[in-house]
């Protein structure tokens, strides 16, 4: 293992900002900011549909505002091929739906609530992701 490209300050600061989003959503609306759940609910449930949709619109506007006000070009690179991207999208959709959460729902909100389910889920998806990278990387 070699440590490369490590950006602890911007990572930690960005994390604090994500935490702020989580607590505003929680104190205001009483809900957990788990993105897979919010997106899935927008698609299949009438309950809170406008709220959910607006959260998603905000999520897309965030980077636009950030880039506009800071004049920073957000580094972004996808090197995967299209078939891999489509397969991965399906697996992420199926997996987060069956496992009821993703990196935000289980990894941030669930761990913050000290939920054993979320702690286990996070350990499992990190392990399978690391193995996948090891195998195809």
């Amino acid at each position: 293992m070699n440590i490369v490209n490590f950006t602890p300050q911007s990572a930690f600061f960005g994390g604090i900002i994500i935490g702020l989003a989580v607590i505003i959503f929680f104190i205001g609306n009483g809900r957990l900011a788990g993105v897979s759940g919010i997106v899935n609910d927008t698609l299949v449930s009438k309950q809170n549909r406008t709220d959910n949709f607006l959260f998603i619109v905000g999520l897309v506007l965030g980077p636009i505002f950030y880039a506009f006000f800071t004049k920073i070009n957000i580094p972004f690179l996808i090197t995967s091929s299209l078939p891999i991207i489509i397969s991965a999208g399906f697996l992420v959709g199926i997996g987060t739906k069956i496992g009821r959460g993703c990196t935000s729902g289980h990894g941030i909100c669930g761990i913050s609530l000290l939920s054993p389910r979320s702690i286990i889920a996070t350990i499992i998806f990190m392990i399978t992701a690391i193995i996948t990278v090891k195998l195809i990387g």
Partner: protein
Amino acid sequence: MMSKIISFISGIIFGVGLSVSNMINPEKVLGFLDLFGQWDPSLIFVMMGAIIVSAPVFFLFRNKNKPLFADNFAIPTRKSIDKNLIIGSGTFGIGWGMVGFCPGPAISSLALLNTYSVFFVLSMLGGFLLTKLVDRIIIPTQ
């Protein structure tokens, strides 16, 4: 009305956080998942930053009666470590490791107008719908 403003603002702030930390970038996330190669531990710091902010607030507010603009706090009550949790999370991790996209960053990256992000998000929505469909066939409602 207020709950809609809160949702919108939370989404924006979340998207800014993903941009500042560069978690919106699959290459950055794959750097974290490449534990046995060229490892970039940044993602751990993102999670720590978020958890340090949210954990104390959850702890202080979860037993209060009401959030500001809704009738009650909606916190999942499920406790069991069941088969679905394990299989689902395992499956999610495989998809995550293939590209470096999880749902939040994938949606947020639509801002960057990258065609691949669009394909990923559409496939993810397809995965949600497929699971719902299969679920209906296996466990017919009523």
